[in-house]
């Protein structure tokens, strides 16, 4: 025993020294990124949260005073005994934009996942010219959102848009429709454009997951005589699930804070106003800087809660491997 112990000791020491060196190296490599993140993400975030507890306005940011939770909820009791609630949490416009955002996110992410999965399955098959198709499919994703939003705005234009033109010629509609301005169709228009734009991203993430699945188990399934549809549900889907879950959370986070597409395509339409648009409006257009900060903070909170719930419920594995 004594011999073994005296032999073990130096080994253990060397090991921990090695680990210490590695940890130090890791911190050195991480430090620049942490500093930059703190400056461009951490600081603004903290400032926004701070402003949401003040009465700051665009003209008077420096002189902002702490007012506690007033921006979120203020309760005033009038002399008559009536109690008046005010603030973000009882603002119907805010809740309308929360509902818009959630509706938009769920529909767009579900559609993108389904279509993306189909596209990925096709791209995963062997066929001539697969490389070109794979590259081509990325184009909608590669175009900057502002550009593609402008492009679609023109295509959807009620007077000159090609979409109205085509639908009229096909006899599907009888009069031109103002797709982006109309309350009934604005959300649909935004959804179509977003799905068009981000399905490639989904498809590529899923494709990467599909390519991790060894091909020989499909041959085993063939010999087992399993129907291709059953193979999809029982083999492909369970195996691609980890990649799929990560892809969905990426997209979900993106969709929940959507701003640019809606700002360009359907500005001021209450049917498509999302949390981000609501926050920006208050921050800069309505000179309610503190109120907008409160909306931003709420958006941040909602995103965090949804992400955490999703990761726990979905048992998402970010570490990779099986």
């Amino acid at each position, binding site marked *: 025993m004594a011999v073994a112990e005296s032999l073990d000791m130096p080994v253990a020491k060397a090991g921990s020294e090695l680990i210490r060196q590695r940890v130090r190296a890791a911190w050195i490599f991480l430090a620049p990124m942490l500093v930059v993140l703190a400056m461009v993400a951490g600081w603004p975030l903290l400032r926004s949260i701070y402003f949401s507890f003040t009465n700051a306005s665009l003209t008077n940011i420096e002189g902002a005073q702490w007012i506690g939770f007033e921006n979120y909820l203020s309760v005033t009791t009038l002399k008559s005994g009536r109690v008046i609630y005010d603030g973000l949490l009882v603002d119907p416009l805010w809740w309308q934009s929360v509902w818009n955002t959630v509706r938009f996110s769920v529909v767009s992410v579900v559609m993108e996942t389904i279509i993306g999965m189909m596209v990925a399955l096709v791209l995963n098959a062997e066929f001539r010219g697969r490389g070109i198709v794979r590259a081509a499919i990325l184009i909608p994703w590669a175009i900057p959102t502002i550009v593609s939003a402008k492009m679609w705005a023109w295509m959807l234009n009620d007077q000159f848009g090609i979409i109205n033109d085509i639908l009229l010629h096909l006899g599907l509609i009888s009069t031109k429709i103002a797709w982006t301005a109309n309350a009934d169709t604005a959300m649909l228009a935004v959804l179509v454009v977003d799905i068009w734009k981000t399905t490639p991203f989904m498809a590529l993430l899923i494709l990467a997951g599909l390519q991790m699945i060894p091909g020989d188990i499909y041959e085993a399934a063939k010999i*087992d005589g399993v129907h291709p549809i059953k193979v999809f549900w029982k083999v492909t889907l369970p195996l691609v699930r980890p990649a799929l879950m990560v892809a969905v959370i990426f997209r979900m986070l993106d969709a929940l804070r959507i701003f640019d597409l809606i700002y360009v395509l359907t500005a001021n339409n209450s049917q498509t106003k999302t949390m981000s648009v609501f926050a920006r409006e208050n921050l800069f257009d309505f000179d309610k800087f503190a109120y907008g900060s409160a909306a931003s903070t709420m958006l941040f909170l909602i995103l965090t809660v949804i992400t955490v719930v999703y990761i726990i419920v979905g048992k998402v594995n970010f570490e990779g491997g099986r």
Partner: protein
Amino acid sequence: MADLLLRGIKKSYGNVKVLHGIDLDIRAGEFIVFVGPSGCGKSTLLRLIAGLEDITAGTLQIDGQVVNQLAPSKRGIAMVFQSYALYPHMTVYDNMAFGMKLAKGHDKSEIDKRVREAANILQITPYLDRLPKQLSGGQRQRVAIGRAIVRDPKVFLFDEPLSNLDAALRVATRIEINKLHESMPGVTMIYVTHDQVEAMTLADRIVVLNAGRVEQVGPPMELYHNPANLFVARFLGSPSMNTMPCTVVSGGANPVVKPDGCDPIVVQATIPVSAAGAKATFGVRPEDLDISTNGEAIFRGKVDIVEQLGEVTLIYVDVGAPEPIVAKIPNDTVIAKGDTVALTSERRHLQVFDENGIAYPRT
């Protein structure tokens, strides 16, 4: 019980011709081993039989039925892949039961019985609830074999099933596969390998493939002792047969050949009289060469390399030819690099191949 009949089987991928007309009769219950150098088309042939690839031309019959167009699952075959091909997200039990569960017409108790039986045979019962990633390579391979057994196939197909295992495990699993074959008379097994030992020990008959053609079919020892041609002669045996260009001095009774740079020797082969003067190839296996003690010798030369393998010693003798002559000699022979030796062999071990590499039959 399943006979397999292959007639003129061809396979090409686009312009690449991989198999050039394979004819083969496989009897029910036989253990057939495909061997051949890498890229010769062994796996392709196996996959054609399995139905994982389309047959370009020719017919494949199993049990008298042409199965060219039949789906793999309907051919009564089971396949064990080199990479195991287990479903990574399913337990060992589910891996084995998956095919049966999804094929209609098996009730739960029947599936359970079959899976447990197979698990018993292969001694993997303790691992039934584990995932493949929680098993060692050898255990995974047994699960793959178990999955094949559960299918209750008429024909078992193995594609290099042992190549991912270490040497000791390979021997153990080889023996298990042999036992499995004996315990299932009537089940045909087709086994692809490039390991000669596996081929020699497992096969009832070996099929030697080369560049998409069958070179020879026969029982292992038959192929070893009477190779039909130079390719088979060189391919089987380790180290491979010593070969050397020679000239036929005379044919007929007591034919004589003269290996280049050596003395003429009498061989026991049927060489026609008309072959006199023709170019040929002379061959002798390393284990058939002995160090001569009476001065009579086929080859003389200096020992270049001495390899002591333990049970035997290999010596590489430079006889002036481009390739050294290898001899397998007893491990107690005292010999050192640089020694001059004379190598001899019994006449019955000598082989002669004609200009095209076809063996002159031995008498």
